[in-house]
C-alpha cells in the first residue's frame, strides 16, 4: 500500500514490477479509510470492522470495484 505522485507514476511502477494497475485511491478517500479503521484504536472498546461494515465503508467512499470485495471475510 503505497503513495504515488500521480496516476502516471502508478502505471510506470506497475509495468516495471509486473503488477496490474488497481483502482486508485485519492487522499480524501484514504483519510476515510484511516479514520474508519483507526479513530478508536487507542480506546478500550476498539475493534476491527466486520465484513459487512467493511463493505459499507468501502461503498461509502466510492470504492465499489470488485477489487475491494472482502469475499474471504478477512480483510483489515
Amino acid at each position: 500500500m503505497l503513495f504515488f505522485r500521480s496516476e502516471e507514476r502508478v502505471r510506470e511502477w506497475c509495468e516495471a514490477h509486473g503488477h496490474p494497475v488497481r483502482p486508485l485511491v485519492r487522499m480524501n478517500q484514504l483519510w476515510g479509510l484511516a479514520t474508519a479503521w483507526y479513530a478508536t484504536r487507542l480506546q478500550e472498546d476498539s475493534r476491527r470492522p466486520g465484513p459487512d461494515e467493511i463493505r459499507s465503508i468501502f461503498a461509502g467512499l466510492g470504492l465499489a470495484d470488485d477489487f475491494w470485495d472482502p469475499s474471504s471475510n478477512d480483510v483489515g
Partner: protein
Amino acid sequence: MTADTQVKLAVYRHFAETGVRPSPHEVAERAGCEIREALDAYQRLGAQRLLVLESDGSSIRMASPFSGVPTQHVVESEGIRYFANCAWDALGIPAALHRNATIHSRCEQSGEPLHLRVSPSGPEPCDWVFHCPVPAAEWWDDIVFT
C-alpha cells in the same frame, strides 16, 4: 476489562506515547500481569489480527497503524516520531492520535518526497494517489507485503 484488552491497550498506548514498540516486560508492567500472560495474550491478539508478531513470538512487528520496525512512512507529531506500516497506516496514525501530524514518505516510483500535514479533520489538499497491488480479499495472505 479483559486481560487481553488490558494488554492490547498497553501495547497501543506505549506506541502512541513513545513511537516505538514496547518490550513484553513493559507491556506486562503496564497491563498488571506476568510476562507469560502478556505473551499468551499476544497470540490471541494476533489471531484477531490486532498484532503481527516477529518469528520470535515476543517482538511486535505491527500494531496497526504503528510499525515496530523502521519503514519509509514516517509520521511526526508533538515531537514523537512514528513509523507506519504502509501509506494507509501513515494516515491512520494521526487518525488514531487525533492530533496534528506531518507524514514524510515518498513516491514509490520516482522517489519524490511527500510531506503531508494532517489535522484531526484530515489531510491538507493533496493530489497524490494511493495504490495497492493486492486485492482486498488477499491482504492478509501476506500482510507485510501488502
